[in-house]
């Protein structure tokens, strides 16, 4: 770095942002630098005379400051382990370690800049065309090409951070905190609205922040109003990234360390006041370090007190450019030439090796300069309006797009709405703010009218129909200055030139949307905010069409790059535990994730748990089973509709198994329902199906059968549920229950209510998913742990053992009981699930009835069967395929385990019915490619097919 470096910092400027009493030290590409608090990385480096910040994306050309703001394409740096930091926006912090992204071997001698030597420019589609064939070489190409892409690096050991989200419900959101945004927000708040004012920069002010001394007084006044008017919340360093239906807005709040927080906002009205973005001018050499937009130069001078160069050529086509000339003079920059297109002059090309040295003008004159500042006009950042359904229209007199048809709840003000002097713009903004508040109020009235209750004594709000007249703003005049007589860069972040766009059009990619994708113009980190109108203008020019005919590309969310963490937030899905969880944890249960529930998979030895149930007694926590309390005269009608089997004659005290099908005949759930007394029933569902079955009950009761007298209450977590299973379960339970448990007094498939271990109102079902004598207890949840512990204590001499989900799966598989969703899938109709015995086709109606009638008539294509591998030691993994002689698929293994009871492997399988005959031998293809033989069993149950044990 040269010694003159430090002299780029100017004396104190009015309104400067930096705090000269607080020096800040940091490193850039391993060299130490010092700036001041309030400096951005870019301004601090520019003050130190740094001209080259990065290398460009494709050609690795040296690049310097262009806009000195968020949208500067040339200022993407790595800060510590954070890639893609915008050096024109991020403020410096003490000790920050800043690097140009992916510069190899160094910023000044980038080996990859060979790219720009092999051809003047690489043709668009070069990579596609060159490397597509031969295809086997693609991995080799890819590994080389990857080194040519600069994209920063991330530290994979970065600790996981959870990003919180917040919600806001303001009346009015003003997107943009420039003069118009501030005036709008203040006006809306003064009309009584609660306002959220969102500004991208660290402070309010917009373009007045860098507009020099003349605007300082007005800026202070407007900012004071916005900050002190009651009802305005200001978010700086924040951006509205998206607008969705009914003004659902995403606002990203950034902090200086790079972390982000998402605020989800429901606004009643949105005022878009994003200001305007200065567009670059397209000419040869327009990316040389030293070529800068006037906004960039004025930011450096007025905001950061940095002299952007020493000898300048200024291209100015508007008042902002003219004012900038004065700013540069004040900063001590020698103005070598002022080129005014309004008088017909142009800049033709910029010349220099690695940085600007000379400027060639349309007059033929060549001027020596280290700074070329352009002020040719503006791009309207219409993103939020696009997202609100607007299709902005081009106005040639103003050389930019304007809003056309905004929905009622979106307004626009400031430069995006029109031109005019400060007074006109502020009047427009103030009227827009008042109108936004009025529409927000009317929206509130509409919302309130739909809420049935008001606070005591409150009067319902009334509409305000006196529309505020918003004055029209003039448009232009601005010159349609997009490209000079030479070709230059249109998209700096993607290295796309006007020549590339011309080639794309010649190759047939002649619409803006096609040319954009083919050349990747507007598809880089800036997403077109700087370069869209130039791209459209060049495409129009290449097509010999107007910009209005060519149209613009559609902007989609997000408006600004957003970290995925901010969008992801933290997981809000609840995790459910049964009230018995403390016992499980204390006894070594291995946790199993079962939907929303955490359940004990086993307590160390699932086979021993199986043997305990078959030989003595075991208890399992089945709390997650879905439970619905049904009450009313018409419960049987409801059950008849939902289940495939018959329910009208279920007696009090009886329990019945039932299967449910959807109207396509596919099995969706199963469980038992018991009749507790005349009009009270308890229905159980699979744990995964609990919510869906409940909603189905409600749907039937609310939509198709409002005449039924049934009330439904979900009671899944009101009860702790314990299954006591095994030949000695009756003996154990008898020690604690006041219910007659004798085979005659409490038969199989019956329900009783009684007191267990001193706890009243326990529902006892005598059912048998495990195939053993068993009792399922539904205990008021708060007493579940007590009953469980009492069962363990009372049964210690019986060898009672807790068993988990794995043992239960083995037990039910030994018994041939299906699990809906495991032994069936989304196409398995009842007759294919082995449930044909339950289907009562003579019922007048039930869900799925016609399909099941047809399935029965034509025969089930697939059937559920039990299989036993010929080699008892082989357990084919679940989902192994069953194949025929020509390797055609005949079915699949749906469940498989080693059976401790039988000392052999057992399976359930879905297999084509013609191959499902008992004693057939099937070939099972395992995932490792080996084929084993398995025999079809005569019954689904491998153990106790007669069901004697459960009925004992």
């Amino acid at each position, binding site marked *: 770095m040269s010694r003159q470096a430090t002299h780029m910092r100017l004396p104190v400027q009015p309104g400067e942002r930096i705090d000269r009493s607080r020096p800040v030290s940091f490193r850039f590409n391993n060299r130490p630098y010092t700036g001041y608090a309030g400096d951005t990385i870019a301004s601090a480096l520019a003050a130190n005379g740094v001209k080259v910040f990065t290398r460009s994306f494709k050609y690795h050309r040296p690049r310097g400051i262009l806009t000195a703001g968020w949208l500067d394409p040339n200022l993407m740096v790595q800060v510590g382990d954070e890639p893609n930091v915008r050096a024109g926006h991020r403020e410096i912090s003490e000790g920050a370690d800043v690097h140009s992204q992916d510069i190899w071997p160094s910023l000044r001698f980038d080996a990859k800049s060979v790219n720009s030597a092999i051809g003047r420019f690489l043709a668009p589609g070069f990579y596609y065309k060159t490397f597509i064939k031969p295809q086997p070489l693609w991995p080799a190409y890819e590994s080389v090409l990857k080194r040519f892409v600069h994209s920063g690096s991330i530290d994979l050991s970065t600790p996981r951070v959870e990003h919180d989200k917040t919600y806001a419900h303001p009346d009015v959101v003003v997107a943009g905190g420039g003069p118009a945004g501030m005036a709008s927000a203040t006006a809306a708040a003064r009309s009584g609205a609660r306002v959220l004012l969102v500004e991208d920069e660290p402070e309010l002010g917009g373009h007045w922040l860098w507009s020099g001394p003349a605007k300082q007084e007005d800026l202070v006044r407007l900012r004071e109003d916005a900050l002190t008017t009651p009802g305005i919340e200001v978010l700086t360093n924040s951006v509205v990234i998206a607008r969705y239906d009914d003004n659902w807005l995403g606002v990203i709040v950034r902090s200086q360390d790079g972390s982000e927080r998402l605020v989800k906002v429901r606004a009643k009205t949105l005022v878009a006041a994003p200001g305007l973005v200065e567009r670059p001018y397209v000419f040869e050499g327009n990316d040389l370090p030293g070529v800068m937009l006037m906004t960039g130069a004025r930011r450096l001078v007025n905001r950061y007190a940095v002299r952007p160069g020493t000898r300048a050529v200024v291209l100015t086509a508007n008042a902002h450019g003219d004012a900038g000339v004065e700013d540069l003079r004040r900063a001590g920059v020698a103005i070598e030439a002022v080129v005014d297109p309004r008088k017909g002059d142009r800049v033709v090309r910029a010349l220099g090796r690695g940085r600007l040295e000379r400027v060639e003008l349309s007059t033929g004159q060549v001027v020596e300069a280290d700074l070329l500042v352009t002020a040719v006009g503006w791009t309207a950042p219409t993103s939020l309006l696009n997202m609100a359904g607007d299709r902005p229209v081009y106005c040639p007199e103003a050389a930019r797009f304007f809003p056309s048809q905004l929905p009622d709840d979106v307004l626009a003000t400031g430069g995006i709405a029109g031109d005019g002097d400060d007074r006109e713009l502020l009047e427009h903004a103030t009227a827009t703010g008042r109108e936004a508040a009025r529409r927000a109020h009317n929206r509130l009235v509409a919302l309130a009218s739909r809420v049935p209750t008001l606070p005591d004594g409150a009067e319902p709000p009334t509409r305000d129909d006196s529309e505020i007249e918003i004055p029209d703003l003039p448009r232009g005049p601005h010159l349609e200055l997009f490209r000079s007589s030479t070709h230059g860069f249109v998209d700096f972040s993607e290295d796309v030139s006007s020549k590339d766009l011309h080639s794309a059009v010649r190759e047939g990619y002649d619409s803006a949307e096609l040319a954009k994708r083919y050349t990747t113009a507007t598809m880089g980190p800036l997403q077109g905010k700087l370069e869209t109108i130039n791209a459209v203008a060049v495409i129009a020019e290449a097509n010999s069409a107007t910009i209005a005919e060519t149209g613009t590309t559609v902007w989609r969310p997000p408006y600004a790059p957003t970290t995925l963490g901010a969008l992801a937030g933290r997981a809000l899905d609840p995790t459910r535990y049964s009230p018995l969880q403390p016992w499980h944890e204390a006894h070594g249960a291995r946790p199993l994730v079962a939907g929303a529930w955490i359940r004990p998979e086993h307590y160390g030895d699932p086979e021993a748990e199986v043997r305990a149930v078959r030989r003595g007694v075991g208890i399992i926590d089945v709390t997650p089973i879905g439970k619905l309390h049904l009450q009313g005269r018409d419960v049987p009608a409801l059950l008849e509709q939902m289940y495939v089997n018959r329910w009208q004659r279920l007696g009090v005290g009886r329990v019945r198994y039932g299967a449910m099908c959807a109207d396509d005949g596919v099995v969706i759930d199963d469980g038992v329902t018991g009749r507790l007394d005349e009009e009270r029933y308890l229905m159980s569902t699979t744990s995964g199906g609990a919510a869906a079955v409940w909603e189905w009950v409600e749907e039937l009761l609310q939509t198709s059968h409002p005449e039924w007298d049934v009330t439904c209450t979900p009671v899944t977590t009101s009860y702790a549920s314990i299954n006591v299973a095994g030949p000695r379960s009756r003996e154990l339970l008898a020690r604690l229950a006041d219910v007659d448990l004798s085979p005659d007094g409490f038969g199989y498939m019956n329900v009783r209510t009684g007191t267990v271990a001193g706890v009243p109102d326990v529902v006892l079902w005598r059912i048998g998913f495990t195939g053993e004598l068993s009792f399922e207890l539904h205990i008021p949840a708060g007493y579940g742990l007590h009953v469980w512990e009492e069962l363990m204590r009372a049964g210690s001499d019986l060898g009672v053992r807790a068993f988990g989900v794995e043992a239960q799966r083995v037990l039910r598989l030994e018994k041939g009981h299906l699990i809906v969703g495991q032994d069936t899938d989304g196409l398995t109709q009842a007759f294919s699930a082995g449930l044909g015995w339950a289907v009562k086709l003579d019922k007048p109606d039930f869900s799925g009835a*016609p399909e099941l009638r047809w399935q029965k008539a034509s025969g089930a294509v697939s059937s559920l069967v039990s299989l036993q591998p010929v080699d008892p030691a082989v357990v084919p993994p679940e989902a192994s395929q069953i194949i025929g002689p020509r390797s055609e698929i005949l079915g699949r293994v749906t469940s498989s385990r080693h059976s401790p009871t039988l000392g052999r492997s057992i399976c359930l399988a879905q297999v084509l019915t013609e191959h499902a005959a008992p004693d057939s031998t099937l070939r099972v293809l395992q995932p490792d490619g080996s084929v084993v033989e398995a025999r079809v069993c005569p019954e689904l149950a491998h153990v106790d097919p007669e069901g004697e044990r459960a009925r004992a």
Partner: protein
Amino acid sequence: MMHLDCPWCGYRNVSEFGYLGELRERPDPATTTREEWRAYLYLRRNPAGRLEEGWYHRAGCRRYFEAVRDTTDNTVSETRPPTRHPDGHDEGEHATAGDLDVTSVSV
């Protein structure tokens, strides 16, 4: 995210609701044909424009209701209790096999 006007709760975020799709009449299961039943199961009119559809306020009052929505711009012109609900009224437009040429559906 759009607002949806629950007949019982007023305007709420649509993420609170479950979507049931367009309203359709369940054919009489005793007399239905395969063609008619499967049109009921699988075929939808899917208009670009006015659509009568079912919703469920899952994270709210847990009530079912009907909405008339323009599928081109998500404007909801009406929400109401279910048609057969005592507060509802019956003027639905429903897809039937006759609306759709089921024979042209390739399988």
